[in-house]
């Protein structure tokens, strides 16, 4: 393919009305510069030899023809897009979690992952919320923003958060009656290090704002007289 034009080409022969151009054939010949192409090629219009035909590979006739026509499902070329992020949610926004173990906690938004989920952190030292994925629908975005420029979140993606695949041990009879020998799974050390690294710069920016640390440590709850549809978050 020739190089793509940056702007779509506008016709050199504008329509007077539909079907009738402004310029005649001879004028258009001149406008298109066909005379110049001919002159460059020695008075003759350049011809290209036809490209050699690619012989099609011979297909062997199939050995088996099915008796009934089997319906094939239609082709689906849909590529799902990541969830559209609400305009009020930008990196560094304080979010209020509405469901789950950390219901009511105020949490800092880091980035949106490719699955559409939001990557969020407490910070852990302040309110016990670790690096975690959260769905946009279960979140209220407040208008409080924190400076998040010192944090590097490039290494976190959905694969980081998938469960580890544990091979099931085959139990013999004797072991049926034993209590689960495995103790509670401890978080691997590198995940703890990641948490500390992300939180270090966040904590500095949080401590710069008065009362923000206590704000993030507190949980949100609806009190008497608060009308959610009238509250400004």
């Amino acid at each position, binding site marked *: 393919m020739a190089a793509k034009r940056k702007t779509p080409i506008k016709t050199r022969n504008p329509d007077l009305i539909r079907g009738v151009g402004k310029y005649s054939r001879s004028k258009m010949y001149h406008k298109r510069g066909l005379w110049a192409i001919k002159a460059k090629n020695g008075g003759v219009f350049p011809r290209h030899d036809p490209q050699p035909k690619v012989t099609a590979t011979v297909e062997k006739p199939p050995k088996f023809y099915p008796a009934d026509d089997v319906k094939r499902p239609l082709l689906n070329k849909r590529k799902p897009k990541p969830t559209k992020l609400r305009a009020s949610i930008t990196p560094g926004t304080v979010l209020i979690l509405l469901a789950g173990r950390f219901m009511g906690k105020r949490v800092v938004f880091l980035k949106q992952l490719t699955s559409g989920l939001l990557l969020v952190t407490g910070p852990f030292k302040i309110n016990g919320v670790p690096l975690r994925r959260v769905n946009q629908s279960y979140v209220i975005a407040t*208008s*409080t923003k924190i400076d998040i420029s010192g944090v590097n979140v490039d290494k976190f993606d959905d694969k980081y958060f998938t469960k580890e695949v544990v091979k099931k041990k085959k139990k013999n009879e004797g072991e049926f009656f034993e209590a689960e020998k495995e103790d509670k799974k401890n978080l691997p050390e590198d995940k703890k290090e990641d948490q500390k690294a992300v939180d270090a710069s966040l904590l500095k920016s949080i401590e710069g704002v008065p*009362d923000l640390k*206590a*704000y993030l440590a*507190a949980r949100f709850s609806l009190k008497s007289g608060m009308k959610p549809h*009238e509250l*400004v978050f």
Partner: protein
Amino acid sequence: MPFKRYVEIGRVALVNYGKDYGKLVVIVDVVDQNRALVDAPDMVRGQMNFKRLTLTDITIDIPRVPKKKTLIEAMEKADVKTKWENSSWGRKLIVQKRRASLNDFDRFKLMLAKIKRAGVVRQELAKLKKENAS
């Protein structure tokens, strides 16, 4: 009890219903028993039912249906804005608006401030009680 606030030309009123809710307007003419012609520096002069207006104590000195320029001059002369903002009614509205626009973080800071103030008051009270008891 007799009426104190009358519908008259120059009476400043607060709009309590409709598109211009919360605005201060001046009655510049009376259309009929139910409607008034109403004007404000930032709106097009138009009619409004009296039921949409709540009269205030403030009046200004204007001729019937003044030009916008004269209206604005008269409002400046009577200092409607400062009179309104210093009146208890006006101050209450300003506080209501401020409270409604508070952010979640602002509400948290407000709660901390209230607790702090209550603590200080309680300490003073305890001091006074001790003095009184002794």
